[in-house]
């Protein structure tokens, strides 16, 4: 029951803040913040409650189920396992920060803004929890629409183009996934004699290898677009670049993760053989993503687009790790999801704060910020380091584990992927150099972080350091998940 409350709380708070927004923007933000923090606390409480049972017992820590459309065997089926729990923690953490980020940035129509923000978060929550495939698809789409509005209304100059492009790309993938789901359900119905969209039921469907490959293709494409894997990454820089800070934060920190989550939860688990048969290609795609993303990031002159391309690069690691079919790589992937969420989120937050001050995203018009904003410079430095994979920080562990795991699967690809780290260092340092070092530009007379911003960036910094130093709780959380995956590997 608590699972459904997580969703309802956000949906309700969204409506509430919209309705009350006429009075006061702050009130709307306050409601949103309260709701997300409440969810965060609930999730932390869940974490505490289930911590002892991470390693043992059945697949799910918690389940909620209600009939929805019985005629098609569709139920409102939510379940929580370690992976979802980890993702939920990330969701609410970043969600709360997103609200804080928008505190000042969003002045117009704030109520509707928070409504959309909260509904996106609710959709994401649903995606991480749903194990009825219809429901999964449902939430998958639900998180898009408010996101679309976030970009379309509060984005930058090219927001319309970006928003529509974002929506079309993801929707195209989503519909293919829907087809795959349907095909699978119908094959299952042929075998079991009844319709069911339930994850557990569909897991037991026997598919001929050819069919399995096709069906998996549908899923994989949807997730690959979302992730994004290189040929489908086109929407990402636009969307991330044009979105408001909170939007970018959620896009990079959370929406991309749903793709990765989907790959782990559905593609690899449901179609192990088919996934294995394409694993080399998938890893290749990952590696291309790493290199190509980094390469493009280096060439950007727009700060937000630069960060966006780093996401492409980092998500390449996820692809690489997920398809290398090793326990270690999988741990690395989950770790990467969390740390990338935090580090890129932080970078976007910083970019947003810079934009608030300078009204530009152009790297060329920045420079010498360190002198005027040492605190921000320091934190930015920290996250740049995190992003390029400095040891002691979370990202290092993630990428290290992934590369280690992938090494067992394919040596050449791993080697090439490792060069991506070098590129990462290049673009990260270029960014820091352009923004914070160098001669201060004339118009950059501005002020350093205020308390709210400090809280945001501080929380992010602490968490990235903590993850780097104490990754074990995360690994604990997903023991069970990985054990299950191991079954399928065999």
């Amino acid at each position, binding site marked *: 029951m608590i699972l459904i409350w997580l969703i309802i709380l956000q949906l309700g708070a969204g409506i509430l803040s919209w309705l009350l927004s006429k009075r006061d923007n702050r009130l709307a933000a306050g409601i949103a913040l309260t709701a997300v923090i409440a969810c965060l606390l609930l999730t932390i409480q869940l974490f505490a409650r289930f911590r002892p049972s991470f390693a043992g017992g059945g697949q799910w820590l918690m389940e909620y189920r209600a*009939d*929805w*459309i*019985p*005629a*098609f065997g*569709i139920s409102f089926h939510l379940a929580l396992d370690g992976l979802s729990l980890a993702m939920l923690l990330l969701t609410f953490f970043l969600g709360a920060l997103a609200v804080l980020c928008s505190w000042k940035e969003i002045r117009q*129509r704030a109520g509707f803004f928070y409504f959309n923000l909260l509904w996106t978060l609710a959709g994401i929550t649903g995606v991480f929890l749903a194990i009825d495939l*219809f429901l999964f*698809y*449902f*939430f998958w*789409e*639900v998180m*898009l*629409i408010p996101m*679309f*509005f976030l970009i*379309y*209304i509060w984005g930058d100059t090219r927001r*319309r183009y970006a*928003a*529509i492009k974002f*929506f*079309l790309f993801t*929707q*195209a993938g989503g*519909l*293919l996934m*829907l*087809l795959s789901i*349907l*095909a699978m*359900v*119908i094959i299952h119905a042929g075998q079991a004699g009844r319709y069911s969209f339930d994850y557990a039921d569909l897991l037991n469907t026997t598919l001929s290898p050819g069919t399995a490959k096709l069906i998996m293709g549908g899923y994989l494409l949807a997730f690959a677009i979302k992730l994004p894997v290189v040929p489908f990454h086109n929407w990402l820089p636009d969307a991330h670049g044009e979105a408001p800070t909170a939007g970018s934060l959620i896009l990079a920190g959370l929406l991309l993760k749903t793709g990765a989550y989907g790959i782990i939860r559905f593609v690899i688990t449901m179609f192990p053989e088919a996934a294995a048969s394409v694993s080399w290609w998938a890893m290749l795609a990952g590696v291309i993503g790493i290199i190509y993303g980094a390469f493009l990031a280096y060439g950007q002159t727009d700060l937000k687009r630069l960060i966006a391309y780093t996401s492409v690069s980092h998500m390449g690691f996820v692809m690489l790790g997920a398809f290398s079919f090793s326990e270690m790589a999988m741990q690395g992937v989950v770790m990467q999801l969390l740390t990338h969420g935090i580090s890129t989120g932080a970078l976007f937050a910083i970019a947003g704060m810079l934009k608030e001050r300078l009204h530009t995203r152009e790297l060329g018009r920045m420079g010498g910020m360190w002198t005027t904003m040492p605190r921000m410079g320091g934190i930015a430095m920290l996250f740049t380091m995190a992003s390029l994979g400095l040891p002691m920080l979370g990202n290092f562990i993630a990428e290290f584990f992934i590369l280690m795991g992938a090494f067992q699967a394919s040596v050449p690809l791993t080697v090439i992927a490792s060069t991506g780290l070098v590129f990462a260092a290049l673009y990260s340092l270029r960014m820091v150099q352009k923004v914070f070092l160098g001669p201060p530009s004339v118009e950059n007379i501005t002020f350093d972080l205020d308390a709210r911003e400090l809280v945001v960036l501080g929380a992010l910094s602490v968490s990235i350091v903590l993850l780097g130093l104490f990754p074990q709780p995360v690994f604990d959380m997903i023991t069970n998940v990985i054990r299950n995956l191991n079954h399928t590997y065999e």
Partner: protein
Amino acid sequence: MNELELQALLPFMVLAASSLVVILLIAFRLSHTVIQISGFMMMCLTVICMWLVRDTLPREIPPLLVIDGFAAFTTGLIVFVVLAVGLFSYIYFEEREENPKEYYILLFLATLGAAVLTVSKHFISLFIGLEILSISLYGLIGYLRNRNNAVEAGLKYLMLAALTSAFLLFGMALVYLETGSMDFAVIGRHVQSSGFSVLMILGIGILLVAVGFKLAFVPFHLWAADVYQGAPPPVTAFIATASKIGVFSVLLRFGQSLGLQNEQLLQGIFSFIAIASMIVGNLLALRQQNIKRLLAYSSIAHFGYLLVAFLPGNDNGETAALFYLLSYSVTLLCAFGIITIMSGTKQDAESVSFYQGLFWKQPILAVVLSVAMLSLAGIPLTAGFPAKFMVLASGVEDSRWIPVLVLVATSVIGLYYYLRVIGILFEKPEEETAATKVLHPFFYYATYTSLTVLMLAICWLGLFPGNVIDGIRQLLQLE
């Protein structure tokens, strides 16, 4: 004709009587309001009658009609649509130059025609229903006769509908010549025993051309956009929903009785038409700046989607089609309701740019329109999603991969223009326009409320389609 058959016919009689009642009311010079209200009551009475006679169904009324669950659903849907359209009509026509009263006669007659189509199982009833429907529609489309667009649209529709009737009749004649009967069931038996002869295929082909015209399938779609644009918005709403429901349901019944889907050639033609409609409809809609034209092209695409549900020719397909019709109708009513309520006395609110920034001026209307657009796009939380889902499911179940894939691809294209409309709603308004005075507060707010209710219905259908699907399946006696 025995008593039970008479009972089963009761709703249709009430429906027929309603236009007579309106005629008499006009003859005795009663006001528009009285006519509106009594028309509303008659429609409600029809619904009540349907409720009362539900136990006597299904019942055949030889030789022309059959009133079964399927017909009950589609007729109910049509009457529901007309309730809404009638309500929208009040403010629209009260504020126009034309005397609004005769409009209701034609509206109810058209309703009767559509309803007759849903219950017909014989060429004669099919033909009569179709003609009652189309001839009333000519009048409805050209109702604002002093506007060039309206008469032009009316005439274009008339030309095409007359052509359609000719095709329909010739096709029927050929089928009749071949089988010696005009009863669907008998023709079906003939087909079962002796297959499709050349003449038969030719006849059915010509007949389907006619149906294709009426439903505006590609390549018979040329009239759709013009008529949608030229007709008054409530009428357009009617054409887009009720009239198409009627024709589509007769197509479904005809297809089922004959097993059209089992014939390879016809199967191929249907697939082709479906694919072409989806592609062309969506592509043409992309560039439209006029929201009525946009909806016209989108309706072409939507009926392409519906054909995908028709293709398998099985129960799931039928359920999907009915659900799709339901959700589509509710959605389009919303959209056209907005157009109606937004239209000024001189000009209809047709241009997309007219809606710029609506969200910041009239948030509720904008939300209604957005929900409608999302529903058309088939996004979850709205009725369009389960509808499209079911259509896809029925296509996938029957392994109709090409149409299904085209459906997916084209709905992504479609998404673009729906999003564009939604986007415009959320743009910054151009300038602050002074709020126009509401001329007829009661009906204005009634329309406003009904739009909100319709929007909630869309969401409800999107969230909890289970009950409705079960209901449809029960009506179709699948359980």
